[in-house]
């Protein structure tokens, strides 16, 4: 394991429990998701049936304690399960990751007891679908410059929310949303607050579903707020805590996206190895050619390096649970490297398949399109590099 300067035990153990979970998720993903992935990629429909089945197993609130409807497992369980789901289909893993690390995790960290009971339980148990809404049309990487507003009414009972949020994963189907919006524009990022939003209430309009390059079965849309009345008890944390909440939730989220990227890369890699063994050219298996061997060696090495950076981030998150020390750096490094690995591996795996890789007869082109998102959401690769470098340089 990576050498760390903090007093973290450098041990991550895959227990019998983890192994049983891995087998169960793999079995489920291969039997239930693999056969439908292509169809849902094509149609762009939301795969509600399989998402509900995943919820039934406990995949929608893996780290949420049992008393709040979750499975009560650790971050390693989350990573192993998410990788396996992503290996079958990236869209399913996107929906799963938002529910787990962006939605449930944020409320578990910053919510009151009543908020956890009301807002986490139904999502962790899979009855409802959660979403996380930070991005706006004019603010993505620079999230703190958002234009949407929440204003406390005269009676002090409700915040009146107005504005347009964009790129909300599961937006078209979400029941509940953790929303970030500005309560005090004069304070910049310290003027942002987080709210728990019932998406089926008046004043919330779902925009059209975005047509996308990849993860097409994960529905993404704009959400428009028009005088939406949010009761004051649905404020998450305190007024002005929003940016802090958004960023610390993203630390956990980035470990999830790294695991997703790893899963996509592994799926492509396994197909490439099988094809390189089988496909004949110039009278031999193409795996005999040095240039193909180089690709295999580089893919495998990067995949294992990504896996270890993810494990390192898991350790850092476990340390955070014990000491409260943030794991932003470890999460960013894992996300950056794993997502760039997914791009590299899906590209080379497609190349190894030649024309067949380009065909919709095989899933290689889907892996290639799906991998692309991992370099963009939850902080682009540029933003991850910025986070890592600023941390190292001590510059803000």
């Amino acid at each position, binding site marked *: 394991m990576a050498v760390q300067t903090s007093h973290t035990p450098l041990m991550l153990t895959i*227990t*019998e*429990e983890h192994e*049983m*979970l891995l*087998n*169960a998720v793999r*079995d*489920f993903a291969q039997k239930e998701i693999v056969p439908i992935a292509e169809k849902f990629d094509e149609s762009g429909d939301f795969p509600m049936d399989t998402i509900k*089945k995943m919820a*039934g*197993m*406990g*995949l929608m609130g*893996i780290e949420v304690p*049992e008393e709040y409807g979750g*499975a*009560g*497992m650790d971050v390693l*369980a989350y990573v192993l399960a998410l990788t396996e789901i992503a290996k079958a289909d990236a869209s399913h893993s996107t929906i799963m990751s938002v529910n787990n690390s962006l939605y449930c995790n944020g409320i578990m960290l910053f919510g009151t007891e009543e908020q956890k009971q009301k807002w986490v339980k139904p999502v962790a148990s899979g009855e409802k679908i959660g979403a996380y809404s930070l991005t706006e049309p004019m603010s993505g990487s620079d999230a703190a410059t958002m234009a949407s507003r929440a204003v406390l009414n005269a009676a002090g009972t409700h915040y009146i929310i107005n504005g347009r949020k964009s790129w909300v994963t599961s937006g078209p189907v979400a029941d509940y949303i953790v929303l970030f919006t500005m309560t005090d524009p004069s304070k910049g990022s310290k003027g942002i607050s987080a709210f728990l939003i019932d998406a089926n209430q008046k004043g919330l309009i779902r925009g059209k579903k975005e047509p996308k390059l990849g993860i097409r079965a994960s529905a993404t849309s704009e959400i428009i707020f028009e005088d939406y009345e949010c009761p004051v008890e649905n404020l998450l944390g305190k007024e002005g805590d929003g940016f802090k909440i958004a960023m610390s939730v993203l630390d956990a989220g980035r470990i999830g996206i790294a695991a997703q990227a790893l899963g996509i890369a592994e799926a492509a890699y396994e197909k490439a190895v099988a094809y390189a063994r089988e496909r004949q050219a110039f009278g031999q298996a193409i795996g005999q050619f040095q240039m193909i061997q180089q690709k295999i060696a580089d893919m495998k090495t990067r995949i294992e390096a990504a896996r270890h950076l993810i494990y390192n981030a898991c350790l850092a998150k476990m340390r955070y649970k014990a000491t409260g020390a943030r794991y932003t750096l470890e999460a960013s490094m894992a996300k950056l490297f794993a997502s760039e690995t997914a791009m590299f591996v899906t590209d080379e795996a497609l190349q190894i398949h030649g024309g067949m890789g380009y065909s919709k007869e095989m899933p290689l082109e889907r892996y290639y399109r799906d991998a692309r998102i991992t370099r963009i959401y939850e902080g682009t690769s540029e933003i991850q590099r910025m986070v890592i470098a600023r941390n190292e340089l001590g510059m803000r």
Partner: protein
Amino acid sequence: MHIVTFTRSTPDTTAKVEVNGKGEVTWGDAATVVNPWDEYSLEEAIVQAKNVGGKATVIAIGTEMHNEALKHSLAMGLDAAVRVWSDGLDVTDSLHWATAAAAAVNKVGDVGLVIFGKESVDTGTDQHIYQTARKLGWTMLSYVAKILELDAANKTIKVEKVLEGGKQVLTAKLPAVISVMKGINEPRYPSFIGIRKASKAEIPVWSLSDLGVTLPAASTQLVGYSNLPVQEVVTEIIDGATPQEKAEKLVEKLLEAKVL
């Protein structure tokens, strides 16, 4: 009322099963899985136990390898798991197996229904099911496609059985032994909470002396295993000017080969 079901770990159906140089059956490093037919009996045991407000217990007879199937069963939601094993128990002898199975069912106590999957996928056999029913002296209902009613108070069971070209509805007195078909239900995947419980579970082992049985001499003898002869496949493309001519040539060849 108690419901009992049996299971075993079998090589994954996609594994390449072979006989090695020493005459042992091997499947490389492929995983073992719950006998695929048993997924349905396990699910049915959970559902029926819940319906009658009873308890569902799963039993495996064999070496430690079968703990894996038992843990999977617990993770699915079975209430309890037991493994039966003693040196000298010959599980390839179905009468040995059934003698131990019947004794285990009696030891569980208050059992109203024993549910089996249709067969074991590895040995491709099902006689141990009927022998178990005989040893218990209970009614045997095979190939059950649906349990229409399980009445714990009146001690009856009503089932739908699949027959060749039809179905049959039967009512029988409990206790009974049934074997169920695929499609009787949709087996659940283990839940994470179930997995957490199962991974911590200690599975008790009952020996033959715990069961109070002495086995009869094995009535079958295992001489050895051998691989299937390799089949030679010869491909021939039939030429002909018209589809008609090709079909005629094909029929001729099939008649020649005594296929038709």
